[in-house]
């Protein structure tokens, strides 16, 4: 099998709290991204998805510490911290943030901000850069003349598209999109998603889409990973996750999404996610799980293959556990 474009291996993120306490926000997350692939990272709010992608580009606040490997085209970019990560920012891995409304500095023109990374990474400069900025805006469906306008002159949806254009400035290989469609109305959402899919298909752009919105993942991504309390519970092809989930959380999560055609009940998962400042010995989902049994609270489930490209961390899939009970 060919080398994955981006491989995240055992990524951990801790946040230092007052005193000596720590919040273990991301616990050993691993996944791989092939070139041009669209990968979804789903979970409830606060499960660590945003922290994961910020962490893999070293964009965390100073009270955070990171461990693990992030291998981009064979190079471990986290090896020396800031010095090894920084050259790859935007140039290889670009980001579109949640609420891109504010991704733009209000006192500078949009064009200037698109040009900025180009000049920084020496991709283009001066007039050439501005022309490119215009072209990028056209690619996302915005007239190039708008480059000289200020962010507040754009509508929400346009700003998001402009943010995507800005992300493409240095023709990155990976685009990390964190909740790109939240806070946009449905019509605009559809346009943005269509845009992202189009870019991925046309330019071979790999995409990691972080969202809590499952239909979006189903629409856009070929594969997805489900996160809970800082850990990946299950990972696999999106349709398999939908139709044959091997982790109770995945199943309940998808069941909680109202089906526009179906008559099924809308279920919600009772309970709240666990605290992350104390270590959790067993499965973090155990307190809320409907299939929990004896080993769950005390023994950490193994992350096992349950199908082609499909893995889950649940004792129910573990033959060794089944034997014991």
């Amino acid at each position: 099998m060919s080398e994955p474009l981006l491989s995240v291996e055992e990524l951990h993120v801790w946040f230092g709290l007052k005193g000596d306490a720590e919040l273990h926000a991301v616990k050993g997350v691993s996944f791989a991204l092939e070139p041009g692939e669209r990968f979804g990272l789903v979970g409830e709010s606060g499960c660590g998805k945003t922290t994961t992608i910020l962490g893999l580009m070293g964009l965390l606040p100073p009270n955070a510490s990171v461990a693990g490997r992030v291998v981009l085209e064979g190079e471990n970019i986290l090896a020396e911290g800031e010095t090894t990560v920084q050259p790859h920012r935007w140039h290889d891995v670009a980001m579109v943030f949640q609420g891109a409304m504010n991704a733009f500095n209000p006192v500078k023109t949009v064009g200037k901000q698109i040009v900025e990374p180009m000049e920084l990474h020496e991709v283009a400069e001066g007039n050439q850069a501005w022309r490119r900025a215009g072209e990028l805006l056209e690619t996302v469906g915005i007239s190039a003349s708008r480059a000289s306008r200020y962010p507040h002159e754009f509508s929400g949806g346009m700003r998001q598209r402009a943010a995507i254009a800005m992300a493409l400035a240095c023709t990155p290989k990976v685009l990390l999109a964190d909740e790109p469609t939240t806070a946009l109305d449905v019509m605009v959402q559809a346009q943005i998603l269509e845009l992202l899919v189009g870019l991925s298909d046309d330019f071979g752009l790999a995409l990691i889409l972080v969202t809590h919105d499952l239909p979006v993942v189903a629409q856009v991504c070929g594969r997805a990973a489900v996160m809970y309390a800082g850990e990946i519970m299950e990972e696999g092809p999106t349709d398999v996750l939908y139709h044959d989930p091997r982790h109770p959380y995945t199943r309940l999560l998808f069941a909680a999404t109202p089906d526009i055609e179906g008559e099924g009940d809308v279920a919600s998962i009772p309970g709240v996610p666990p605290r992350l400042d104390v270590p959790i010995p067993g499965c973090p989902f155990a307190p809320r799980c409907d299939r929990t049994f004896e080993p769950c609270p005390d023994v950490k489930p193994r992350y096992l293959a349950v199908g082609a490209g499909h893995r889950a961390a649940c004792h129910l899939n573990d033959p060794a556990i089944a034997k014991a009970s």
Partner: protein
Amino acid sequence: MSQVTAAAEAPDSAVSAPPGLVRDALKGPQALVGLALLATFVAIALLQPVLLSQDSTTKVGAVFAPPSREHVLGLDGGGADMVALLIDGTRVSLLVGFAAALVSAVIGGLVGLTSGFFGGKTDITLMRLTDYFIVIPDIPLMIVAAALFGRSLTNIIVIIGIIYWTTTARLLRAQVKSVRERVYVRRARGLGAGNLWLIRKHVVPQIAPLLIANTVLLVAYAIFAETFITFLGLGDPSVISWGRLIENAFTDDAILNDAWWTIVPPGVCVAIVVLAATMVGSSIEDALNPRLAVGHLSVRRFGLRVLPQMPPRGERSATTPPPTGAAAPGKGRR
């Protein structure tokens, strides 16, 4: 409205004040230190008749005598004891401070309350008026007014008080306006509550913390302002205040005589009281307006940890301990 006058308005007047806010705010370390300092000076002022056996300006020794065991802070240009003068000055300076602040708070409070509560034409006229007055520079106006009408303590208190009412008025108006629109006020009005009752029961408790914070800060301003007026020779010649002591030192050529003990102490006293009042006032203000101390992205770097080699998740058995953060702090930490 101009940017300048907009900035002079309350930053977030929509924050509601929970009961006991002032009391809680005053329990913080900053406020406590401030209160302690203020209390000390107030005590000195109140105990003045006890502490001083004679008029503080009595000549007790040589002019500009340096500090000695008998006179810890030396003697001034008239041979009077500095310590006695300072004690005396405490009384007047604090009096001017509190009295002027009170005048300012009352005027500003009434204007702000009326304007905010009744709205409409009253509001517009009053605010137009304050808008014009805000631009006129405060301290020069005070100096001119003092030059024309000053020289008595009462006049000075009134002058200082009148100059500073605008900020209080604007602050309160914004707050009152937002309180007036609150649901429970509307409800009470619907039940037939009269204006005065509404003001007393609902508006006042909500605006009280802001008013208190503002008044405390006004005390600081007033004491500060008094030193300007007296320094230019416009103070009441019959009283001793800290500002007066600074003026005396200057006009008596204390510098030529190297008499630092006549210059340093009165200024230190002013600075301490102003600082203390600022600490208390801003503690209350902060409690009202919790600045979301987010700064989630301070531009320092994240830290990297080196963990002991761990087998990947799939191979871990129940006996493998989870990775903890207890490893050597890694590279990349600033």
